[in-house]
Structures are given as C-alpha cells and as structure tokens.
C-alpha cells in the first residue's frame, strides 16, 4: 500500500516541488525589478517577440473560436427559441474565458517553448555562466525582460482575440445563420459588462506571468545538451498549460 502511495504520489510531489522552485525564481525576479540598470531595449525586443510576432496565430485562433462558438450555441439555443442570445454568449465566453485561455495556450506553444529552448541552449553552452562571470545577473538580463514583456503583451493579444472572436461570431450568426443583426448586438451590449472584459485581461496578464516564468525556469534549469533542451521545451509547454488551466479555475472563482 505504502509503495503504491509512493508511486502514485511521486508526480504530485514533483509538481509541487516544481511550483515551489518557480515561485522562488519569481521572488528573485521581483527583487531584481527595482535595481538598475533597467534594460528597456531588451524588454522592447521581447515585447515584439511575444506580442507582434504572435499576432497572426492569435487572430486565426480568436476568429475561429468565435465562429465555432456561434455555430454551436445557435444549434443549442434554437431548440428553445433563444437564438437572440448567441451574440451575448459568444461575447461573454470570449471575454471571460476563451479569449484569455486560448491566447495564453497559443502563446505558450509559440513563446513559452521558445523561451525555454533559448535559455536552455544558453545554459548548456555555458552562456549563462558567462553572464555570471561578467557580473551580470542572468535573472535581470534574461528572465525579467521576458516576464514583463509577457505580462504586458498577453492582455493586448487577448483583447485582439476577443474582438476578432466576436466579429467571427457576428459573421457566422448574422451573416450565415441569419440572426437579426440588431438583436445580436443589443443582447451582447445588454449582457456583457465592462468588468467581464477587464477581468479577462487580468487573467491574461496572470497567464503571461505563468507562461514566461515557467519557460524561463525550465530553460535556466536545463541539463544535458540537445536532449535536455528538447525536454525542457516540452516540459515548459506542458507545465505552463496545466498551470494556466488550474489558475483559470481559481481566478474565475474569485473574480466572477
């Protein structure tokens, strides 16, 4: 029995340990936040990488999420004559949940993995040690700009995703399924509050923190050459995704 518990509990212990180490990295990063030099140029470069370069994938994901949501809810709501609520449902789902979560997952796949791979490669080729020997903190030089960039850019990407999702939903609902345009818009404006959008953006910023912190942590702790970099990249994506889903539940419970 004890052996079984040991076997079953090992992944849980590993998960909790990893979360603890990630929190330690976060504390260390916060302590470097207020110490000069402030590396604005590196941060702008990271903002371009996280934000501008993720735009295409976020546009496509957001638009099709809104479109499929309109399609699915239309068929469900039609059974009891509630087609007029399709617009509100799409907007509410996009702003509260699907916009922030899907954007975070897509950015995790694109950016979180790249952060883990880049920092992991730097670790195994001793570039991070080289920074240390030159009296430059790798946390301040590498981790901090990436985390700030992700925290700032995720809400921007999310609001774009929300917008194109709603436009996609409108296109399917009004354009293809022939829902009355006025009712679609009126119900949406009636039901969706500014608070829904705002809370969704707070979630997005939090997800930005999670995916960048996890990517950097996995990169900074990479061992074992090319294979190690591959593992770190995969683990960064998996762990970030899990943490995003778990934290989404708790954030939703607190906010809404």
């Amino acid at each position, binding site marked *: 029995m004890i052996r079984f518990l040991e076997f079953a509990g090992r992944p849980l212990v590993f998960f909790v340990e990893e979360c603890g180490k990630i929190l330690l990295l976060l504390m260390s990063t916060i302590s470097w936040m207020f110490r000069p030099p402030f590396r604005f140029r590196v941060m702008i470069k990271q903002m371009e990488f996280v934000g501008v370069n993720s735009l295409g994938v976020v546009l496509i994901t957001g638009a099709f999420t809104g479109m499929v949501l309109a399609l699915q809810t239309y068929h469900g709501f039609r059974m009891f004559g509630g087609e007029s609520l399709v617009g509100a449902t799409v907007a509410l789902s996009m702003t509260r949940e699907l916009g922030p979560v899907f954007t975070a997952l897509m950015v995790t796949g694109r950016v979180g993995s790249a952060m883990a791979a880049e920092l992991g490669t730097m670790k195994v080729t001793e570039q991070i040690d*080289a920074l240390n020997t030159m009296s430059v903190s790798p946390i301040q030089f590498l981790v901090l700009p990436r985390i700030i960039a992700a925290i700032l850019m995720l809400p921007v990407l999310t609001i774009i995703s929300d917008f194109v999702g709603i436009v996609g939903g409108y296109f399917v609902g009004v354009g293809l399924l022939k829902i009355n345009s006025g009712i679609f818009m009126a119900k949406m404006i009636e039901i969706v509050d500014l608070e829904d959008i705002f809370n969704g953006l707070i979630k997005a910023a939090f997800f930005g923190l999670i995916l960048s912190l996890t990517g950097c942590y996995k990169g900074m702790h990479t061992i074992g050459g090319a294979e190690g970099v591959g593992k770190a990249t995969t683990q960064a994506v998996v762990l970030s995704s899990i943490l995003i889903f778990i934290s989404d539940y708790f954030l939703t419970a607190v906010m809404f």
Partner: protein
Amino acid sequence: MIKLIKISKSFNGQKVLNELDLDIDPEEITVIIGQSGGGKSVLLKHIIGLIRPDSGQIIIDGVDIANLNDKKLTETRKKFGMLFQDAALFDSMTVGENVAFPLKEHTQLSGKEINKIVNDKLNLVGLDNITHKMPSELSGGMRKRVGLARAIALDPKIILFDEPTTGLDPIMRDSIDRLIVSIQKRTKATFVVISHDIESTFMIAHKIAMLYQGKIVAVGTPDEIRSSNNSFVRRFIKDLKAGVRDQGSGVSSQESGVRAC
C-alpha cells in the same frame, strides 16, 4: 593571490573535491591538470564563485568568497575574466557586441571608446575585421580567440581558462598556447588554466598542479614535475601523454585502462 583551503564539494553524494588545498601565485600561469571528469572544471567554477563549496575557504586577495553574499560576490567577479571551453559567446550578438558586452555593462565609456577597445583586444588575439560576424560563422579556434578578447576586455587581474585547447587541431592548439603566454606577459595578470593536454601544459605553465581524486597531489614548476621521482606523477604524465597520442588513433586513455596510483 588565490588560496584554496580544504575545499570539499559533493554532487549527489559523490565527492568531487576532497579537502583540496592550493596556492596560486599572482602574475603567473598556473595549470591544473587531471583526468577528464576529475573535477577540474568544478574547481575552476569554485574559484570564480559559480559553485559554492560544501566546506572550506576560497581566498581571493584576502577575502573569503565562499561565504560572500551574491552582491559582494558579483563585485568580486569583476576582478576575473574567463574563457570557457567552447568560448560561450552569446549567439544572438555579433563578435563586436560580444567583446563590447562587459565594457557596456561595467564602464561609462562612449561608443567610440568601446569600439576602439574592442578592436584593440581583437587585434591582440590576432583577429581583424570580424566585429560584424556572428559566432556561428567562426571556426573553433576563432571562437576561442574572441572568447579570450572578451575575457580580457576589462583588463582583469585574474583570467581563468577552461580547457582552452580542447577540440583544436595541433596547429591551432600551438597558436592558442602562444597567445596565452604572450597575453600573460603583456598583461601580467594571474592565469589559471585547467587542462588535460600535457604538451600544452609544459609549454605554457609557470607552475603545474595535479588534481587526482579530489585533491592536489603534486605541485611544481614544469621542470620539477617532469623530473619528479614521484611514481604517481610519472604514471600520471605517461597516462596523459598516451591519451593524447591515442586520440589520434581513436583510443582514449580511459579505454586503455591505465590508471594513476
């Protein structure tokens, strides 16, 4: 002056350094030799504070860095330059940006002044007109030269070398050896080199220290080491020489089964 006093370090229960003592004289080239996987790189990383010992003292200019906090350790590291085994150049920066990096971080020099120092240091290591190139465009020997130029950019008092000739052909190896000697003569800095290349060691060293099973088992000038009657030292040198020769025939010293002591 660098003084290591009873340094011990274990990884996962395996003792890599075992109450190691070593004095490194200033303004000299000290080469620490030992077998691959014997803890040479770990020792070097202790000297610059990248790894902290489980016990013991590391005295740099009278200060024990083993117990310094991170802030003071960062300050102490400004006395050091280090050339890593594969140079550890930043992939995302050009050669010029790599060499300029420590200058930009730790000096208030203008861009023009930094460019002049970068060109001077690159000239010193025998490289011209490559500031715009990326590290991926360079050969192994050129990467090491650029790494050396970066290590000496701030004119540090102590320069550490992690196996500077590993992976180089014999001509390039001799060239790097000559470069190390000439730069040490010019800068009068303290050079600490770790190596398992016995020929290079005899060529560049003022003092040789032998690391075996986590301890320094012999220290002396190249002549003293060469003429030592110590059976361990003789077998060790013979083993390493055989290893160097065998690399050409594809048989390593470890595969040959020869062990010192």
